């Protein structure tokens, strides 16, 4: 593609990188990424993807901006309290890079819309705040053959990985790592545990970096690895993940072949 003068100026620091260059920048502009959640992780993720020139960014969230969000959800502002988060994010991204198209999906990412949403994008980035959504995103991405870049934070801890289990070889899925969600009293602890706002910024920015790497096909993918960040110890660790042969989603005897079990779970809840 031929860039405008403004585009060359805007993306100069990317284009200068041999790993990106004009070809890579053009690829970013043609890319479509779905972000699940416009919260603590979604905020820096959305801002950096837009600034990087990812051409189409979908964001799915059914929530409104609340005062308690602003300690960490930096895509939102005090004057937008009460506004739908997807609309608040659209306004913020338009201010940073009007070339980028933000597609707001004001809905909960659920069994009924997950397949349709995922199929419309090249890659999914999960910044959601509950396990039901995380397992649903993992299943929907595997079934659609789409890469999933997943980050999570709690208190001072962060986790980040990329899942591409539809590829042959040792590419595990989220269910290979976590076979089931923690018991309710663990989650109750999460609900009351809090989070350092800057932690979500750090992990969301790392997640944006991995999304861009995947879109460009550069560097070493986090597929098959889990990055663990301990902010109190200022420590990063990378641990190896392997495909679980008995995994219900991507193992030898797959038992999850559609998203109907998520619908049943939601109905039961």
């Amino acid at each position: 593609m031929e860039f405008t003068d403004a585009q060359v100026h805007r993306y100069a620091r990317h284009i200068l990188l041999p790993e990106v260059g004009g070809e890579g920048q053009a690829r970013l502009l043609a890319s479509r990424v779905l972000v699940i959640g416009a919260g603590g992780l979604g905020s820096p993720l959305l801002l950096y993807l837009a600034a990087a020139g990812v051409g189409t960014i979908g964001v799915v969230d059914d929530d409104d901006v609340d005062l308690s969000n602003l300690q960490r959800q930096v895509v939102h502002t005090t004057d937008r309290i009460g506004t739908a988060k997807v609309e608040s994010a659209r306004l913020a991204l338009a201010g940073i890079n009007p070339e980028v198209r933000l597609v707001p999906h004001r809905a909960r990412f659920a069994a009924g819309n997950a397949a349709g949403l995922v199929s419309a994008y090249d890659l999914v980035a999960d910044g959601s705040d509950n396990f039901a959504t995380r397992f649903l995103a993992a299943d929907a991405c595997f079934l659609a053959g789409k890469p999933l870049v997943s980050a999570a934070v709690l208190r001072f801890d962060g986790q980040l990985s990329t899942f591409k289990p539809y590829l042959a070889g040792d590419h595990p899925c989220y269910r290979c790592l976590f076979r089931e969600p923690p018991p309710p009293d663990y989650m109750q602890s999460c609900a009351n545990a809090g989070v350092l706002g800057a932690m979500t910024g750090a992990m969301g920015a790392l997640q944006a970096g991995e999304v861009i790497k995947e879109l460009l096909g550069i560097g070493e993918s986090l597929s098959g690895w889990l990055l663990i960040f301990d902010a109190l110890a200022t420590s990063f660790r990378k641990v190896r993940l392997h495909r679980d042969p008995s995994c219900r989603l991507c193992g030898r005897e797959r038992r999850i072949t559609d998203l109907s079990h998520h619908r049943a779970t939601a109905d039961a809840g």
Partner: protein
Amino acid sequence: MADDESRPAPPRVVVTLPAPLVNLFPGSVRRLELAAASVGEVIDALEARWPGMRDRLCDSRPAIRRHLNVFVGSERASLATRLPPGAEVTIMTAISGGSPALAEPGRRRGGRPLDRTGKGVV
């Protein structure tokens, strides 16, 4: 007794526990050093310090519970995994999000209610 005396002392290893687990056991800590020759012996040592922790970590098979992972160094481990001296044993759980993990639709967000001193309302 002679066998016990001839058995080498287990190596010292460093264990990191997940924050939600530590929250459930008053006095427990995120990171500690102990003597253990295997992951199973780590669990034994944790149970001796904080009774009840084994049930939180292991199921009846017995095996590490399915929402947890144990890594020795950078590799996933089982109860039988042997530990070299100085091994880093990380027990981790899935975490779901930075904001209060409220999965239930319609539940008001904002987290634990706090009073004006910043302390929790109980």
